[in-house]
């Protein structure tokens, strides 16, 4: 065994080099102060436990894939935009979502979600549009396989539902 640099052959010097750079990089990773994003597990956990989604989520295809796996029902994009006044009607495997104008209050609409399986349940409706943080809407427990809420037509969830590109998830 030698402890002189000149006695190290190429392999030995390369080993030293590799160890040094690995130490340096490992330290760099550990010490980095880059701003963190909402973690995948924080998003998933929020979906699973009913807690609020962490702020700062940037929608992308990966988020959609994650939401689709976490959700009990995923509504795809719809072919054309609609307005609450027209009555929104979106179908997915397992559920149907409609927005029905209230006859009793013209400025309000019913958001009605009916499940194919009467025992199915969902606690939240999440709407993901492009370029904005996901919109989360708490749902009451379904009754006989149907969730119904009454909202003002100005409610952001109706605006999101009217967006043909919005993806909807029942979680």
């Amino acid at each position: 065994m030698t402890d002189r640099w000149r006695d190290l052959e190429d392999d030995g010097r390369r080993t030293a080099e590799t160890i040094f750079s690995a130490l340096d990089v490992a330290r760099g990773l550990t010490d980095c102060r880059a701003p963190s994003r909402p973690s995948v597990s924080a998003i998933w956990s929020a979906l699973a436990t009913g807690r609020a989604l962490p702020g700062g989520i940037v929608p992308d295809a990966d988020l959609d894939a994650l939401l689709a796996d976490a959700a009990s029902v995923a509504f795809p994009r719809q072919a054309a935009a609609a307005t609450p006044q027209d009555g929104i009607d979106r179908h997915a495997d397992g559920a149907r979502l409609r927005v029905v104008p209230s006859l009793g209050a013209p400025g309000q609409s019913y958001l009605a979600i009916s499940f194919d399986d009467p025992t199915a349940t969902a606690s939240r409706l999440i709407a993901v549009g492009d370029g904005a943080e996901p919109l989360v809407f708490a749902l009451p427990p379904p009754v006989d396989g149907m969730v119904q809420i009454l909202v003002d037509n100005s409610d952001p969830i109706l605006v999101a539902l009217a967006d043909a590109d919005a993806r909807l998830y029942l979680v």
Partner: protein
Amino acid sequence: MSGRLRVVIATTAGPSTVRRITAEDPALRSVVCLAGTATALPISGDYDAFVRRPTGVVERDTGQRVYRVDVDRPIDDGRSWQLGFYLAHQLKLADRLAEDDAPAEGIVWATGTVDSDLKVGPVARVVDKARRSAALLATGPPVLAVAAVEHADDLPAGAAPLAVRSVDEALAHLGLVAPVVRGPVDWDPVDWGPVDWGRAGRGGGVLGVSLLLGGAAIVWGLWQTPRSQPATEMPPAAGQLAAGQPAAPSAGSVPVFAPARVSFDVLESRPVGDACGPADVADPGPQGPREVCAVAFRATNAGERPVRIWLYGAVQGGVREYASRRRHTELAVGILAPGEAAEVRVQPPDWVRRSIDVRGLLVLADGDRPQVAQAFGAIDLLSSAEIDALVDGLHDQDVEVREILHRVIPAR
């Protein structure tokens, strides 16, 4: 007593007024909202069960599956709202519910449960509810306090007390008829007795009968006449048709009956700007013209003698089942003098994006036809199938009946 009434639900937090009842899409669930807002009260689920068959009685007795009720103060829990809501539904059906800020001749203060047999049950803390209603009783129109017989001594002072065993008794006092689907009742007219309005001392009555027609229990006639008026009234002056509201049948007769001289037409209106334009005569049929904002049915007497008519227009099919019938039906009853025309106008629901059928019904008679009057008095209660049965029954009795079925696609 034939005027409009306001209904308040007695609660321990004070009276909560029924501001409005609206039929909603039958695919939804009934909901109780706070003062026109989107805030659904926690009793909504129970209210839906109270409305919806098979547990509910409101759908059974009104033919409508889903309602929205707006109240002006929260009703948090319990079932004591059932009696008040039920009475409000029946008043609404008779077009006698004072909604929103419409003037009311009286107030129905109610607390009690209603079971599937329409028996009224006792509830808790009626004395507290009465005490919390003091302000209501001190001012405003006369109040009729309705509750189960167990609470006969608990009802608020200053109100006309009405302790009942069943809803029927309350309906009778309000000048309303009991629901039909609970089975046939006697042919004989029933005198429901006077309504004691307490301080006001006003009276009223109702005449209601039903018969079995075509195997189905159908209301043939129910309309109220003020008890102070004679049982047989004089026919109104020629041309004075009561459009939009059923008129009382008359015992007056028309000397010459010439039905062939009475024409029956359908007219369509299309939007002009934001308004619905003038009506033009259309060819009746199933072609389904688009962008129709109103359909009218017109009866024109080209004869030389007056003729008694019952003219009715209504949207048919599924829409009729859930749309508020009052918005999409119209009835005109009266004497049509020679050269005169009567018209009913129906607005198809503008949220429907498919063809709908509008039915026009014209009955012509040479004189008083009590059974026709009774049937038309309650025609808004009938489903499309029941109207079909009614028409068949009238034909069987050789009554002159004409019918137009016209298909349109409503304008937005």
